[in-house]
């Protein structure tokens, strides 16, 4: 098992407000897992907690990575272990070129040719939604991760870009046995990635787990997340 999240309860650092409750799931090496949920359900909080964001405090539970508890590790230590997260809304870093950051992370040439046109631009400054996603993927690839968490990597992308991003994830991550947790709101990208497990998160809890993403997507398309709230089925289906 590469990642094991065990009975995790997370609170907001300065407000003592519970954001995630009793989260329990695992991801194996090279596996693709999808995490779906409506806005504000806690998907990004989970990604950031695994990343080591100090705003989120683990009140209960453990995060194991490659068999070791990583609760106490800093974000950069987690990166060195092999965890990398693509941010949903990456911040701008004015005055710092993307190429400069990639060179610091990995002196080798960037793996993605698509990122070359904006290597000389300040990080995320003036980039379109699609360009930001490519930039995020290029950064993750340069980290040589074992596990990537892609937070809404498909949001705001048109059909062509979605296909492009799906192809990059397949070719550069999944085929190279990198585990992928794909966080998505509408699930369209799952058609390209075909996850082996799909979780649905609502109000900070995983309320549904399934192996067939198609069934889950079809249900969501028909009924939306309302059905998930009402549904009492929580075991694997």
């Amino acid at each position: 098992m590469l990642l094991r999240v065990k009975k995790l309860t997370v609170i907001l650092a300065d407000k003592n407000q519970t954001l995630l409750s009793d989260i329990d799931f695992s991801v194996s090496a090279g596996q693709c897992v999808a995490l779906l949920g409506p806005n504000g359900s806690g998907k990004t909080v989970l990604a950031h907690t695994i990343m080591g964001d100090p705003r989120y405090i683990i009140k209960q539970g453990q995060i194991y990575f490659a068999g070791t508890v990583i609760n106490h590790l800093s974000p950069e230590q987690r990166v060195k272990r092999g965890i990398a997260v693509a941010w949903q809304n990456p911040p701008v870093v004015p005055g710092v070129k993307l190429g400069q950051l990639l060179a610091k992370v990995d002196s080798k040439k960037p793996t993605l040719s698509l990122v070359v046109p904006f290597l000389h631009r300040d990080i995320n400054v003036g980039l379109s939604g699609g360009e930001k996603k490519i930039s995020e993927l290029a950064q993750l690839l340069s980290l040589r991760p074992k596990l990537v968490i892609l937070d809404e990597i498909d949001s705001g992308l048109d059909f062509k870009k979605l296909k492009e991003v799906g192809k990059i994830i397949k070719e550069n991550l999944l085929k190279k046995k990198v585990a992928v947790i794909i966080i998505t709101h509408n699930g369209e990208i799952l058609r390209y990635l075909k996850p082996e497990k799909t979780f649905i998160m609502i109000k900070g809890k995983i309320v549904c787990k399934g192996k067939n993403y198609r069934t889950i997507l079809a249900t969501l398309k028909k009924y939306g997340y309302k059905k998930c709230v009402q549904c009492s089925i929580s075991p694997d289906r």
Partner: protein
Amino acid sequence: MDIKNVCNAQFLQIDNRIQNISFVKGVEILPSLTAWQNYPWCRKYFSRKPRGGYFIWVKEKISFPLVTCVSLTTKNVSQNLTNLIIIEKNLDVTAKGICNSLANNLSGTHIATGKIILKEGARLNYLHWHKWSHSDIVQSNYEFIGEKNSKLLYSYQNLFSPSRLSLKTNVVVKKKAQARLEIVIKGKRSKINLEESINLQGKDAQGAVYLKLAGEKGSDITGISRIYATAPSKGHLDCQGLVIDKSTTISLVPQLVCSHKQALVTHEASIGRVNEDQLLYLRSRGLNQKEATELIVDGFLKK
């Protein structure tokens, strides 16, 4: 240009010895005292008889940058320079001024007073680099006079601050002339006092000050930036400060003084700390806290 590589300096002074003055066609470069003795007309630009420093008189078009370099290399040396640069009408000049300390813990003193005259239609792009060690004391007091239709871009950069820095810059902008000051300073264990003023004295004069200051490790930085508008003119002040750690204080005072009803002067000022989101973002790319902070601060100062 590497700040240490000053082989091509037309004026080179080490401690209090002038090491080199190059012959440059169309330009007269002299020690200030020699200029005072040889050219009585230039005495009006000096407040008193100079003891040290350089005189540069650009009389004809040149196609390369003028470079001056004044360095401290010996312990406890005190430099006192009075510099004068005169650029004749309609000439376009790029100048690079380097003042630095070539070793740590020299406990040197560098005092420089300068006057730069841009005659009618002259254009000057002046890059002024300072690089000091923590034990030095530096006072720099420069005045620029921009005659009619002249254009000045003065960029001052000091990323290696001395223990004490006093920097005064005063610019007079006459009819249809333009002046832009860009001042970038990173203070580390430094007490820094800055005063800039732009005097918009002529019709359609334009002036702007862009100040970027970052401080860390107990730095105490104060800056007063002023624009005086006494003619139908435009001026803008932009002062930004970045406090890197808890032990640092930055105080910025932008001041606009307008005494002409057709003048327009504006300002923006902000002081902040290192953005937590940016910090976390870079840490999530494997940089540690120190590396991430340095990158953000460098970006702030460069932008």
